[in-house]
């Protein structure tokens, strides 16, 4: 008994000692990290702020009417850059309350007004999430000593969202004009005055463009090369393979393909020329094979946050402007199955982004059709006004397809495109309840009979079986991998599956 008490007290003493040491170390650690926190030396330089932001609203400018001193291109560049950063730090401050950068981009008086506004909002438990989308600067005056510039931002477009208690209370698109005066202080062009004036109408109805036409009958296939699934434009890109694949697609008597542009792979906001060139080659080969191409943008993109909008718009701009006149481009598919992100990113957030993006693409390229590749027929009616035709995917039992089509037709007058359908012939070790190749062929048989009756546009999933599908798609489980990899019409050995004949020999 005495011994055990002794042991207990020893344990207590040792444990206490260890605990004390741990607390001591933690304390020292806290002090250490406190002493090491704070601004890094580099942050005193202007460039630091510039490098940290990823903000790309469209900016056009005109200095023809500028009076006063000389306004060189370099100066204009500096002004525009700082003006852009000023909006960025303001938006950031209004959303997060983080006032970093306000001191650099606003003069003392202007900054006070902003800070008062931010203080008021944070007391109300409000945050405003916003981004400007385009600016149109008309330079008015530059002082002779080059330290004061006055200009107007005419018809600036922006989007804002009002958050309260974690809920979106309201969202608006805005068209407003501003009068601005900026001063050059300590190497920064700072906003001295900004005043809204003669604000334009809010953008409500945005869809007044001529409707792009679809071919009479769109029968197509979703395309990835066999060796590089989900990575068409990567290192394995080979025009000769693509030429051969497109020949096979022609053999299937199909007239369209759908390809995927990975947002990050293509360089995010600054699209890589090398990737654009590969897409160009693919489109050229498609033209040679008389295939229409539906280009699905923003593959694997999943941010949607308002502060990221300008980066995505810039990305779309570079792609759409480069290829809008390419004869092979039929449509821009804004994003593949964005409705799958509703649960993780919020439906309002995703829809708001899609709405802006589809509108923006339409503005850039009124001649091509715009669509969104919804994952199921129920979601296809979302943003109906923004698209030229409704795209949806259907992997359920075909018995439900007719009803789904009928329901959609009763609710929209726009064309329908069944953008993805297919059945995996994945019967095997990993999936003993899977389907075999004959069942896959029967599936297409059944589909074609429905389609014969209804004549909607369709694209099957997909040309090839793959050796393996990337983990980002399958989540790494072998049975999912097996399923995902066996949707093709041609097997891994390059042999045509039964379904190949069914598609080729359709009426």
């Amino acid at each position: 008994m005495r011994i055990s008490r002794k042991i207990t007290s020893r344990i207590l003493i040792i444990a206490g000692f260890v605990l004390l040491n741990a607390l001591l170390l933690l304390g020292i650690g806290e002090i250490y990290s406190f002493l090491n926190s704070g601004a890094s030396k580099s942050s005193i330089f202007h460039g630091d702020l510039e490098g940290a932001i990823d903000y790309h609203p469209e900016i056009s400018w005109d200095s023809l009417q500028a009076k006063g001193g000389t306004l060189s291109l370099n100066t204009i560049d500096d002004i525009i850059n700082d003006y852009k950063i000023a909006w960025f730090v303001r938006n950031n401050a209004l959303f997060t309350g983080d006032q970093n950068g306000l001191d650099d981009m606003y003069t003392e008086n202007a900054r006070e007004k902003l800070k008062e506004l931010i203080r008021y909002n944070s007391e109300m438990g409000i945050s405003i999430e916003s981004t400007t989308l385009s600016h149109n600067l008309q330079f008015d005056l530059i002082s002779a000593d080059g330290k004061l510039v006055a200009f107007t931002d005419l018809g600036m477009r922006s989007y804002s969202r009002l958050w309260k208690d974690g809920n979106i209370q309201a969202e608006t698109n805005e068209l407003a004009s501003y009068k601005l005066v900026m001063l050059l202080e300590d190497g920064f062009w700072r906003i001295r005055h900004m005043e809204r004036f003669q604000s334009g109408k809010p953008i409500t109805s945005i869809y007044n463009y001529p409707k792009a036409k679809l071919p009479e009958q769109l029968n197509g296939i979703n395309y990835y090369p066999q060796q590089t699934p989900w990575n068409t434009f990567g290192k394995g890109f080979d025009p000769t393979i693509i030429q051969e694949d497109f020949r096979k697609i022609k053999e299937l008597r199909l007239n369209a393909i759908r390809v995927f542009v990975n947002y990050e792979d293509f360089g995010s906001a600054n699209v890589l020329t090398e990737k654009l060139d590969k897409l160009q080659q693919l489109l050229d080969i498609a033209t040679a094979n008389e295939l229409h191409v539906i280009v699905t943008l923003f593959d694997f993109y999943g941010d949607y946050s308002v502060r990221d909008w300008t980066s995505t718009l810039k990305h779309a701009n570079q792609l759409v402007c480069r290829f809008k006149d390419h004869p092979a481009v039929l449509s821009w598919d804004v994003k593949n199955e964005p409705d799958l992100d509703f649960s993780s990113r919020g439906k309002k957030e995703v829809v708001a982004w899609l709405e802006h993006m589809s509108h923006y693409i339409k503005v850039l390229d009124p001649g091509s059709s715009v669509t969104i590749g919804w994952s199921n027929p129920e979601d296809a009616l979302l943003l109906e006004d923004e698209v030229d035709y409704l795209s949806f995917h259907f992997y359920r039992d075909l018995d439900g397809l007719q009803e789904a089509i009928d329901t959609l037709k009763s609710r929209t007058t726009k064309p329908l495109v069944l953008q993805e359908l297919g059945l995996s012939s994945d019967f095997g070790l990993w999936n003993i309840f899977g389907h075999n190749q004959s069942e896959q062929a029967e599936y297409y048989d059944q589909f074609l009979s429905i389609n014969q009756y209804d004549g909607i546009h369709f694209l099957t999933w997909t040309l090839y079986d793959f050796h393996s599908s990337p983990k980002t798609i399958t989540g790494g489980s072998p049975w999912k991998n097996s399923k995902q990899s066996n949707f093709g019409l041609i097997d891994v050995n390059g042999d045509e599956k039964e379904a190949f004949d069914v598609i080729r020999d359709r009426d």
Partner: protein
Amino acid sequence: MSIGTYTAASIVISTCMALAILSFAPEEDLKVPSGFSDERRYELLPGKVEFLAGDSIRIGFHETGIESIPSKGKNTDTFLLWVKSSYGSVPVEPQTDSNNSYFQLPSFLCETAGETEVLLVVNNKITDRKMIRILPKEDSAITMESYFGPPSIQAGTADFAMLVTLPTDMYDNMVSDSTMVNIGSTFRRETSIFNIPMKNGYAWKVFPSTTTTGTYFVNASLYGFGAREMESEVHPSKPVDFTISAKREHDYADGNRLVRLSTSVLRDNYGNVISDGTLVTFEIESEQGNISKTSGTTINGVSTAQILHPDHPDTWSVRARISGIAESDSLKLVFTKITESIPINYYKLEDNIVVGPIISYMGQWVSDGTEISLFLNDNLILRKGSKEGIVNFSLSKLGLPSEKLTFEVRALGITETIEVER
């Protein structure tokens, strides 16, 4: 894992949690078109749309169809007024008095001029919007924020100074367009007042340069509110070519006196004396083509510099330059010998060569320190400065052979020889 990373990790975790909470948003069907039809609809009351900064702004609302009767709304409805002002937007909660509900804009919004958009948000939907205009309060104390520059401009016709003034009301709002600002200027005793209309928040005036130098004093004022005067100087323009002169006590090459070089009064194209402190470099080229330089800065347009006479007869050509801008003509200066011959004696007992006393142009000793060199077979053996006209060359320690030697003495551009029998 160090303690630092532990702290960082916990911050990351808590941030993730915060993000998770933030990203939780209610699922709401967006497709239902705003739901106006089956929902009670509210509108903002018409009423005043133009206010002066600082006025109290109150906006009421009412139910559609029941015109102009302010409403409290139903208890189940939530109301919010989203106000979009010049510097950003804020929501305003409704307030209720005995009869109705209204939105009272916070004072800082009432003080910010500009087109302000107000949106009525009912149950998370925007049901009405209108624009109100807040005008600057111009009968208040005006602050004149003026910029005048550059601080100096060049005389002539190309350059100019510019005054930009940003008058603001007591709430730091830009003053309305077309308001007349008084801009006064004084230049060479002449005072003028200009009335300049405001546009986009500023008024401005250019003050062109003149051909005569002077100082512009300017000021801008509005409604009697002024600011301190500002100035910009019209500096002389670039100097034009000029002449130089030299002043010396005599023409002898004595290596002792100074030549004083000066420029004429330097002026710009318009006859203005150029600014003090302009650097002028004098370049002196000797007969042999060696170049020496001396320089001076201008005072009252004249730059002077000094240089020693040569210690041998020479002819200098002198030219002055203001680098890259202007230059003078060339000036020729001749220096003559101060003596015809130099006496030399050898004293065998001391094994010394004594040079001198050298007598200068009016019978005086040459100045102390005059350089005298001793050569043997064209090789320099010794060099010394004179003292009281004399130099003593001691040969004993030079280790020269004891035979007949011929030495040369060179000084003041003269060469004498002496034969020595040791």
